[in-house]
């Protein structure tokens, strides 16, 4: 079994990757996917922390399950909003959405 640090490094990398994707992408759906990536990175760290925790409580694992459920809900809400805006603007590119500013 690899050490906790290894899991955490992978998790941090995943999180950074997701954050980079969120910041670099312009397509609303790809941004949404990047956020999912970040959430999964957190899930990985939660489960890893739980596994290496003494005492056998399952809080971390349960938390990860909850996060998955939340992520699913988030995707639903997000897609609904993206579809609505694509209907009025005919594009998923977020840099086209800047009517509201200043």
């Amino acid at each position, binding site marked *: 079994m690899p050490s906790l640090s290894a899991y955490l490094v992978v998790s941090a990398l995943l999180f950074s990757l997701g*954050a980079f994707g*969120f*910041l670099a992408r*312009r397509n609303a759906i790809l*941004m949404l996917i990047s956020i999912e990536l970040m959430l999964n990175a957190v899930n990985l760290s939660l489960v890893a922390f739980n596994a290496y925790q003494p005492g056998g409580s399952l809080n971390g694992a349960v938390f990860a399950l909850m996060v998955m459920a939340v992520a699913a809900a988030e995707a639903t809400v997000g897609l609904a909003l993206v579809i609505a805006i694509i209907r009025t603007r005919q594009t998923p590119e*977020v*840099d086209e*959405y*800047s*009517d*509201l*500013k*200043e």
Partner: protein
Amino acid sequence: MELLIALIPALPLAGFIFAVLVGPRLDHVPLHGQHGGDHSEPEDGYASDGAHAASAANHSSAEIDDSGLLPIPSEEDQGHTSPHRGHADELSNAAGAEGVIPVDLRDGLGEAGHVTPGGPRPLYRSWMVPTGLVGLAWLISMAVFVSVIFGGQTYHVRLYEWIASGTFRIEIAFFVDALTAMLLLVVTTVGLLVHVYSIGYMDGDRGFWRFFAYLNLFMFSMLLLIMGDNFLMLYVGWEAVGLCSYALIGFWYKKPSAAGAAKKAFVLNRVGDFGFGLGVMMIWTLLGTLSFDQVFAGIGALPGWQVTTIALLLFAGAVGKSAQFPLHVWLPDAMEGPTPVSALIHAATMVNAGVYLVARANPIFAHAPAAMWVVALIGTFTAIFAAAIALTQNDIKKVLAYSTVSQLAYMFMGLGIGAWAAAIFHLVSHGFFKGLLFMGSGSVIHGAGGEQDMRFMGNLRRKMPWTYRTMLIGSLALAGVPIFAGFFSKDEILGEAFNRGYLIFFIVGLIVAFMTAFYTFRMMFMTFWGSYRGPKPQWKHIHESAGTMVAPLLVLAVPTVLIGLLFGIPPEGGAIHTWLNPVFEAAEKLRAGILPGSAAAQEGHGFALFGTGGVLLLLGALAGVLGIALAYRWYVTRPLSPRRFVERFPLGLGPGMYRASLNKYYVDDIYQLVFARGGVLVGSALWWFDAKVIDGAVNGAGWVSQRLGGLLRRSQTGRVENYGLEMAAGLIVVLIVLIAVVR
């Protein structure tokens, strides 16, 4: 009685709520455009505003080129003075009815609400309830006044606990002692009269109900200010009167100058209020209480520098509200508001709040001799400074405004040297006679078709005898002529300055008294005497104001004559001292040990008409009379032929004066050279200081925040990707700060 006292502020509040909610439905003002007519286009209001502004600009430039002391305008000036000429006919049509606001003074809407000949009269009913309620409040406060002053009682009405958090408690409680009773007398009397006066003055204005709503809100706030029993209520009232003042100065908001003046007043008051707020905060942090009793009981235990800081911070608030140097500039500009407002707020009540604050906090100031010096110095300087400006003003209301600044400064001088009762005496008498003068000037402006420049007036006493007579009484009081109110109160301050050994303050005070008399009568002579210098067609339209406007003048003339006699005899030991003694006793005792000269004051209290006191009295009267005489010489004598001058001069001294006046051109030239040129130069330098330096600082602060706002605003690009990056950057900064802090 307790319940009645609580009713005093509650009644105007009820009036305010009524006026706001029901008022708009009570007035019926036909829209201007519906009646047609040659003045009906909405643009007309603007155009005449513009013309007026242009002519005003012209006037002010003339003021600097030409000697401000010269009453006769040039021909070009006369050509420019015609904004009202075009409205002459309309004025004549309306003049039969109750007063009608000249077209460019009307509600800032410009186009609205004035009476078109033949059209239906507008209907105004919204004044009834507010005025009635203020009248009721006046009745109650008179009863309270009598009971407090003559019954020797003080009232402490605790309504309920407003704030209770931990050890910190604030009650809603009213405290009425002799000091508050004095202010009640002025505030409610002048307040009621201004309400009555406004019925006539604001007639024809579409903002009629709004005006009465503001007035009532102001009355409520002012009563809260003077009746609260703790610094928080005082502060609340303080802010609220500032707000009302803002709303009322900017009442004719379509005049850009009015809007600007309102903003200026607001900003400068906030500067002072900020200091005041800090002072209150400091009192609370150091003493843990804000109620007057407890603060005054505990203040002695604090170290001296803390008391001095508190006193100075409080005084900063007073400087702002009472328009003392260097925050005085808002008051003259505030004259852009309707004249009843100038009479009520900017002469008789709100501007006195600063004096009240210092007088109320006398135990604090008594513990802070350095702060007392600051008060006295600022007061003395402002007194002479403002009087010097008043000498050269040509706008009738500006003269009175600078005079108000100067007279308030007189009160501060009195407070600063520990002449508490004398200062309050002057506050009361000044409240009455300055209110009278302002309302009189409003009547003049109203009757003369909106003209405010005295160089285009003259001989108005023929047309408006009652305004003239009452204003004459007010002017005599302001000039300090014996038996009138101002004489006694001014003399008390001067006398105390002398008795306590502040000789320099005494001399400056005397000079100011002379200047005051001069500019007051310069105003009177330019307005009511001589020959009419305005546009000729205008002359026949000048008329005496309506009864609702003249009646308050007559009523106010009574206390202007009597108050001095009632309160101030014998001089420097009159009834007012007995009444106010309980309020200032402790401070007076304390100061005896601190400041030199106080002991002398106690000895000198036995006034003798033929001793030092008598000489001082005579000197005061002399300064006033000399000022009037000089004004008479310059503004009445010169334009008239010597023969008529001799005939008119009273007491048969004519022949002697006649010989002296043979040299008048010669003397005038010297005066012109020495005083007028010099005076104008100083005046314009001060004007420049006002306009550039102080305004600049105020505008600068606004500019900086606007710029900063603009900058931040541009960072809101509307693009999600930028927002995300900015968030990420924020995250990194937060991490850096955390790591730096934790290490």
